[in-house]
C-alpha cells in the first residue's frame, strides 16, 4: 500500500513534465507567431510610422483619430451588417441538413459534394466567379433577368446592391461547411427519442422543432461563434471582388463594401500608416472579444446541453 502511494505521488510530477515537453513546440510556436505579434501590434498602435520604418511614440493619438474617422465608422457598420445578415446562413444550413438527413434519400453523397464544393474552393476563385456572374453588362444573372424583361443593376458597383450581393456570396460559400456539421450533429441524436415521440403521436414537423432543434443548439452555438468571428475578419472576398488600390476606390459602391480588415490592409500596406493600422486592428480585436462574450452570455437562454 505505502509503496503504491509513493509511486502515485511521484508519477504525476514526471507525467506533467512529459506533458509540458510534448506541448512545448506548439506552445513556443503560439508564443512566437501569435502572442508576440499581438503584443507588438498593441505597442505599435501607440506609435506613428515614417514612410520607410522608424516609429515615434504618440500615445493615444491614433485612437482619438480612429474615433473621429468616418471611414472607420463606415467600415465597422458594413462589417456588422455583413456579420448579422451572414447569420442567415445558419437556418438555411439547418433546413438543408434536415432535408438531407433522411435514411432513404438517394444521392446523398452527390448533394454533399455539391454543397461542400464552394467551401473547399479558394476564396479568390469564388470571388472571381461571382464577379463574372454579377457583371452588369454580360454577367449571367443579368442575362437571365433580361429574359424576363428586367434590367439588372451593376450588382457590385451599385451602392444599393453591393453589400447584399457580397452577403449572398458569403452565405453561399459557407452554407456547405455549416451543413456538414449540422448533419453530423443530427446523426448523433439518439434514434430512441424520435421513436418515443412518434409513439406518442408527434408528427415530423413537431419532432423537428421539439427534438432536432433543441438537440442541435450546441452545434448551432459553435457555428454562430465561428461565423461571427469569420465575418468580422472578412477580407479576401471584398479584396478580389472590388480589386485593390485605385480600381477599388473608383468603385461607386466602395464605401458600402469596405470592411475593417480591408481598411487595415490599406492603411498598413498601401498608405504605410502602420501605427494607425495597428490601432484599427486592436479595435477589431476588442469588437470580436465583446461580441464573443455576448454570445456566451446569451447562450444560457437558448442552448440545451444533454
Amino acid at each position, binding site marked *: 500500500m505505502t509503496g503504491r502511494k509513493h509511486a502515485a505521488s511521484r508519477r504525476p510530477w514526471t507525467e506533467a513534465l512529459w506533458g509540458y515537453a510534448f506541448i512545448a513546440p506548439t506552445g513556443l510556436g503560439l508564443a512566437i507567431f501569435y502572442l508576440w505579434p499581438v503584443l507588438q501590434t498593441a505597442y505599435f498602435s501607440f506609435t506613428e510610422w*515614417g514612410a520607410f520604418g522608424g516609429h515615434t511614440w504618440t500615445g493615444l493619438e491614433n485612437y482619438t483619430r480612429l474615433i473621429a474617422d468616418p471611414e472607420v465608422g463606415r467600415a465597422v457598420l458594413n462589417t456588422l451588417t455583413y456579420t448579422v445578415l451572414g447569420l442567415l446562413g445558419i437556418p438555411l444550413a439547418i433546413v438543408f441538413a434536415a432535408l438531407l438527413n433522411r435514411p432513404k434519400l438517394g444521392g446523398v453523397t452527390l448533394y454533399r459534394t455539391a454543397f461542400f464544393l464552394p467551401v473547399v474552393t479558394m476564396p479568390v476563385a469564388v470571388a472571381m466567379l461571382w464577379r463574372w456572374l454579377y457583371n452588369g453588362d454580360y454577367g449571367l444573372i443579368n442575362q437571365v433577368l433580361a429574359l424576363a424583361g428586367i434590367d439588372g443593376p451593376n450588382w457590385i458597383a451599385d451602392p444599393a446592391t453591393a453589400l447584399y450581393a457580397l452577403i449572398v456570396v458569403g452565405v453561399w460559400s459557407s452554407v456547405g461547411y455549416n451543413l456538414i456539421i449540422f448533419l453530423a450533429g443530427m446523426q448523433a441524436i439518439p434514434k430512441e427519442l424520435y421513436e418515443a415521440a412518434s409513439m406518442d403521436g408527434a408528427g415530423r414537423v413537431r419532432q423537428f422543432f421539439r427534438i432536432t432543434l433543441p438537440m442541435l443548439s450546441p452545434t448551432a452555438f459553435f457555428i454562430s461563434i465561428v461565423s461571427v468571428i469569420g465575418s468580422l475578419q472578412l477580407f479576401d472576398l471584398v479584396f478580389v471582388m472590388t480589386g485593390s488600390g*485605385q480600381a477599388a476606390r473608383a468603385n461607386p459602391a*466602395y464605401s458600402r463594401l469596405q470592411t475593417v480588415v480591408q481598411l487595415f490592409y490599406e492603411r498598413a*500596406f498601401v498608405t*504605410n500608416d502602420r501605427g494607425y493600422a495597428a490601432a484599427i486592428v486592436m479595435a477589431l480585436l476588442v469588437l470580436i472579444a465583446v461580441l464573443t462574450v455576448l454570445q456566451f452570455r446569451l447562450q444560457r437562454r437558448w442552448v440545451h446541453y444533454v
Partner: protein
Amino acid sequence: MWKSARSGAALLCVALLASACGGGEQAGTDTQPEERVKLSYGVWDATQQAVMQELAEEFTKTYPSITVDVQLTPWVDYWTKMKAAVSGGAAPDVFWMNGPNFQLYASNGVIKPIEEQVDTSVYPKALVDLYTYEGKLYGLPKDMDTVGVWYNKTLFDQAKVKYPADDWTWADFKETAAKLTDAKKGVYAVGAQLTSFQEYQYNTIYQAGGHVISPDGKQSGYADPKTIAGLKFWTDLIAAKQSPDLKTMTDTTPLQLFEAGKLAMYWGGSWNVAEFGKNDYTKDKVDVAPLPRGEQQATIIHGVANVVSAKTKHPAQASAFVKFLGSKQAADLLGKKGPIPAYNGTQQDWVKAHPEWKLQTFLDAVAYAVPYPVSKNTAAWQEAELTHLTKAWTGEVPVEKAAADLAAAMNDLLAKE
C-alpha cells in the same frame, strides 16, 4: 564547461601555430580584388522582363565580375512590396522608379543621388526634372511615354466619320464623339476613365490651361476654374451618355470595352503598343492620333528611371549598372523590343517596329508635353483625388463642389509634407 571548451580551442590554435589560423586570413585578403558581385534589379513589367534580362547579360559582358538578377514583381504589388523591402533593409540594389513615388523615396534618403557628372542633355528635360530632388539627380531615365487617342477604324468607318486629324480640337472631338455613339449597338464614343489620371484627367486639365499642383508643390490646382473645365470634359461625356457611366466602367474596364469593339476611342499611352499588338481584335483595327487641342495642346509625359538603393552593399557596381542602362547602347536594344527609350535619337527604332501605326504621334507629342504632376507624398493626395472625384463621376455632386472639396483636402495634405 563553456570556459574550458574555449580555452581548448585557443590551445588548438596555438598548437597549429598560425599555419591554419593565420593562413586563412591571408588567403581572404588576396581574393578581394577579384570579388564576384551579384546585383539584384527590381522591375514590374512582365512584358519587359526578357529585354531587361538581355540588358543585364550585355552588362556582364563589359563587367565580367558583376552579374545581375532581374526580379519581377507585378505592378499591383510592386510599391507595396518595395516599401516593405526598404523598411526591412532588403531592397534590390537597383530598381525601377516612377514619378509619383520618386520624391517620397528621395526625401527619405532611401535612394542614392548620382554623385558623378552625367550628361543629362541626352534625355528629355521633363524626365530629368522629374527625377531631380533639391537640385540632385537620383535616377537616369530608362524609357518615356506620352498619351494619344487610340481609335477603332472599323467603328469610324461604320459611322462614316473621318479619322481624327493631327490638329483636331476639343470641338472636333465632341462632334466626333456624338456621331460615334450608338446606344442600340452598345457602342460608346469613349470611356471617361477615372482611375488613370495620366491618360485622362491630367491631360485635359493642362489642355484647358489649368494645373494639378503649383510649380513649388505647395498648392493644389483643383480650385482653378480652368482645372475644373478639364474635369468637366469627362463628366459631360458621361452625362451625354457618350461614355459608359462609372458603374459600368467598374464592372468592365474601358480597356476591355475598347478591345471588345464597344468603345470607338481610347485615350491611352505609348505603352499600349504591346497590348494592342497582341490582341486579335485590335491588332489590325486601330490606329493612333494626337490628343485634341483645348486652349492649348498638352499631353502628360512620364518615364521610368533606374535608381540605386541607399543601402546597397555594392554602390560602385550598382552605379555602373545604372549608367549602362542609361546609355545609348542600352537604349538601342530597348527600342527594338520594349517601350520608347528615353535616350534622344534612339527612338526611331521604336517607331519602325510597328509600321502599321502612326507611332511618330507619341514622339511629336514630346514637344508640347507636361511633366507628370508630383510632390513629396503624391500617393496621399492621389487617394483624395479618387475619393472626391468619384462623386463627380457618378453625378452625386456637381464637379465644381467635388473639385473644391478636393482642393481643400489636397492643400491639407500638402501642408503636412
